[in-house]
């Protein structure tokens, strides 16, 4: 429901002053028409107090009932009816109060059209102000709701995108641990630790959207260590980074899916050794991450090969920065390169 304009203090003051002016002006006008000061002041007070009540009634009604555009005629009729009621009521009270005054009754009779016009104008103006106010309020509220809904949807989608942990990875890791328990229990224990730390990292990062590259690289190292146990000598990875880039920020859990994609692409598209290289640097207020993996150009067209996890990375970047040009892939001979640029947001 819309808030009444009376909730704004400035409006209350303006409203009060305006009515004092109207009362004074009305009284002066009556004096000019030849009434005595007493008559003029009583008349003005009574007429205008009832008028204020009528206006307040209009404003309060409109607060609960905002007419559609095509119903404005109803409001006009309403104003006319209200003006009529106001006229009758104020005339009745005034004649009761001032019936001992000579000539007042005839003056009242004579002044009805003028009174009616003034009353109608004032009620009309107040109605217009109210309609504009409440429409504006409603619009503001709608916009706010829309913004909230959009934000909620965006947050939910980002959350889901961050959460896409591959169950494959988990089950295959558990299977490796299962194999290690029999033959090399020490290594099994170590891998359980790594897997736990990795999973805890995923949980912890749900809440914070931005993390430093240093933190993300530590997390990535856990992932790489687990994958190396799984794939043995077939997989090797090197991380290269400059000092300056380490302090830069990036959205949490963004780097790992990119590397995961590179590993899968490399491991499943070639039968030999898969060497993953990860290079991070800073460039014009941007964090630049480059991940390279080998692939077989004869059997996979790179366009198809990008499938797996990159579309979700692309979507996340779009939701966060509203830009579609931050993720790029390139196939060169038998090396596939994924490049991500992350703008540094100052208040992140």
């Amino acid at each position: 429901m819309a808030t009444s304009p009376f909730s704004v203090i400035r409006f209350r003051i303006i409203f009060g002053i305006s009515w004092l002016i109207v009362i004074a002006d009305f009284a002066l006008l009556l004096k000019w028409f030849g009434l005595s000061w007493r008559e003029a002041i009583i008349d003005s007070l009574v007429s205008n107090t009832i008028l204020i009540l009528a206006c307040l009634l209009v404003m309060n009604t409109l607060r609960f009932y905002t007419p559609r555009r095509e119903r404005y005629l109803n409001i006009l009729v309403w104003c006319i009816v209200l003006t009529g009621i106001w006229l009758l009521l104020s005339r009745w009270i005034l004649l009761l109060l001032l019936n001992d005054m000579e000539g007042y009754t005839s003056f009242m009779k004579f002044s009805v059209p003028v009174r009616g016009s003034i009353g109608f104008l004032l009620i009309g103006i107040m109605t217009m102000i109210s309609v504009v106010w409440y429409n504006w309020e409603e619009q503001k509220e709608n916009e706010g709701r829309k913004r909230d809904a959009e934000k909620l949807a965006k947050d939910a989608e980002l959350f889901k995108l961050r959460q896409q942990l591959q169950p494959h990875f988990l089950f295959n890791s558990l299977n490796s641990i299962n194999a290690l328990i029999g033959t090399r229990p020490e290594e099994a224990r170590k891998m359980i630790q790594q897997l736990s730390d990795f999973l805890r990292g995923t949980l912890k990062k749900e809440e914070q959207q931005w993390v430093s590259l240093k933190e993300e690289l530590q997390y990535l190292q856990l992932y790489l260590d687990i994958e190396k146990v799984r794939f043995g000598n077939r997989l090797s990875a090197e991380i290269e980074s400059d000092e300056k880039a380490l302090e830069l920020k990036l959205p949490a859990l963004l780097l790992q899916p990119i590397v995961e994609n590179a590993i899968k692409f490399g491991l499943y598209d070639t039968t030999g050794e898969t060497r993953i290289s990860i290079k991070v640097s800073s460039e014009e207020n941007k964090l630049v991450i480059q991940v390279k993996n080998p692939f077989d150009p004869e059997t996979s067209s790179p366009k198809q090969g990008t499938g797996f996890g990159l579309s979700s990375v692309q979507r996340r970047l779009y939701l966060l920065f509203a830009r579609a040009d931050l993720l790029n892939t390139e196939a060169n001979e038998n090396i596939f390169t994924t490049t991500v640029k992350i703008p540094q947001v100052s208040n992140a």
Partner: protein
Amino acid sequence: MKVIIIDDEPLARSIVKEYLQKHTALEIVQECNDGFEGVKAIQQHQPDLIFLDIQMPKINGFEMLELIEQPPAVIFTTAFDEYAIKAFDAHAVDYLLKPFNQERFDKAIQKLREQTNSEKANEELLETASQSPSQNHRIVVKTGSKIKIIPVQDVHYLEAADDYVKIFTQEGHFLKNKTMNHFEKVLDGAVFVRSHRSYIVNVQQITRIDPYEKENYVAILRSGAKVPISRAGYVKLRSILGL
């Protein structure tokens, strides 16, 4: 009984090996890293049973099975979720979801012993396997001792040839032991059109369509090849090309 283990993860192979220790009747003749090695090893050793992972380098477990003329009994070992694997449930001897324990493993071996009429089961397994998702973007064929992976966009057209289908590409044609109906089903219908009872054509390769004899047409491909079009095929092609 001879056994081959095919899995790209060394530890995944070692757990199968460990569980096999108590089954002394089963002898591991080879372990393989991928489907290529798998095909070779199966031809060489003619095993009675293979343990097969599904997600492997280059060609997956299903594609590998397609390349073997008379596949042995198969027990899948995979981290695929149960839902995805259900389709293969009836046809494989068994499937083991990673990680699995000795008890579950023993059950699979038990099932193998009870299994009769495995040939029919294998045929069905192959038919189901050929509907795996990778089928619609590449075709795996064997030429002599070599395995070739053909991305479907490189296929110009397919022609029926007795029990086989000839797959025509830039580099010549390859034979695959499948039916035209199979390819019509798995290939993307917006690109591959059955233009004739014996032909499926890649519409992206067509440069023009000429009339040919009465009420028949012929598609001229970029490579210069001519593919016959029947009346029904012409109607289909027209709707797909938006003519």
